[in-house]
């Protein structure tokens, strides 16, 4: 990319490109890290294809790329634009999310074969794994948005945090509850202080802290900034908690309860297919609820502006 293109597109687009790639990178890393092996391969291949195409295009047509990025930056950063675009997307996202979730859950509950040892109780996986992964993914997204909000003071990033936190809290709760109910017939206990369980509990606490802080501060910009700082600090904390409890537990109880323990573990395609449907369905559900909440928040923050009055009336 020529420096000419950078200077012409201006600093905002440059910042936007950097933050976008950082966010994508974080999300991709997380996906690959947390995915079941088959999905990991699919995502890796997809990611590489996307990356090669993206960077080939960026080198071949730098001006067009910068202009597009700049346009996106301004559109995403501008509340009325975001409100309208989100409004256009929402119906489609609702349809996709509903279809994926319903098909995935019905398939998983009624049509997938039972587990060779756990029998039918493993069917909770179609609820538990998507919820856990959505809770983690939402926290990573919140941390990235927090960083963007702190560094560039982007109003939309603050709104994003406010929209993500309730979804993340609910998903963490779902993950904990379904995990506990699954644990009783499988491990013989509702709860153990295993690293994975403990870090999910802390994740829930962090979500609740972000929500509480946002509600405690009157001024929306100030609340947004404070929540951004807390969510960035929280990302570091969740990572440390995960490893600290792992090390600590090792002395007392073994982490014997891990489910997909080894890297070479396998999940049969007939069980994986509905699981993937459920996972993608949950990600679309994430998009739906976050967009709905973000639109509400935009309306409230901009309630004095003319476009909101037209929109509402």
């Amino acid at each position, binding site marked *: 990319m020529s420096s000419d293109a950078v200077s012409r597109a201006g600093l905002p687009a440059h910042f936007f490109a950097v933050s976008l790639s950082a966010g994508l990178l974080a999300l991709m890393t997380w996906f690959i890290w947390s995915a079941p092996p088959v999905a990991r391969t699919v995502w890796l291949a997809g990611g590489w294809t996307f990356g090669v195409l993206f960077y080939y295009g960026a080198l071949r047509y730098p001006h067009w790329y910068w202009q597009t990025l700049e346009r996106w930056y301004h559109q995403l950063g501008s509340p009325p634009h975001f409100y309208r675009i989100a409004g256009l997307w929402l119906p489609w996202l609702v349809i996709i999310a509903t279809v994926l979730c319903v098909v995935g859950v019905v398939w998983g509950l*009624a049509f997938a074969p039972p587990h060779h040892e756990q029998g039918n109780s493993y069917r*909770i996986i179609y609820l538990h794994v998507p919820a856990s992964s959505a809770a983690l993914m939402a926290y990573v997204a919140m941390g990235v948005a927090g960083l963007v909000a702190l560094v560039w003071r982007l109003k939309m990033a603050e709104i994003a945090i406010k929209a993500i936190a309730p979804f993340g809290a609910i998903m963490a709760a779902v993950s904990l*509850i379904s995990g506990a*109910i699954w644990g009783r017939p499988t491990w013989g206990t509702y709860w153990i202080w295993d690293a994975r369980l403990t870090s999910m509990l802390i994740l829930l606490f962090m979500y609740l802290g972000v929500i509480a802080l946002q509600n405690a501060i009157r001024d929306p910009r100030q609340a947004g900034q404070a929540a951004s700082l807390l969510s960035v600090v929280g990302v570091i904390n969740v990572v440390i908690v995960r490893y600290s409890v792992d090390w600590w537990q090792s002395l007392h109880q073994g982490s014997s309860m891990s489910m997909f323990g080894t890297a070479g573990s396998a999940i049969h395609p007939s069980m994986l297919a509905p699981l993937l449907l459920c996972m993608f369905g949950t990600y679309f559900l994430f998009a739906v609820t976050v967009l709905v909440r973000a639109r509400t928040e935009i309306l*409230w923050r901009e309630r004095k502006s003319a476009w909101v009055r037209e929109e509402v009336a």
Partner: protein
Amino acid sequence: MHFDSLAELWQMGVHGPWVWSAYGICVALIALNVVWAVHRGRRVRRDIRGLIRRQSLQEKQ
């Protein structure tokens, strides 16, 4: 379908209570999340309409 009848699907071998209670509680939570978000959106729209009305009343006076 893996199960022969709806009754078997409901019982799921011995695991019916676990599976169905997990799905019941958690689907209710997720649905609540969506309903809550939509409800708040409606309330905010209503509140803003109220604001506009009050303001136009004040302007008339």
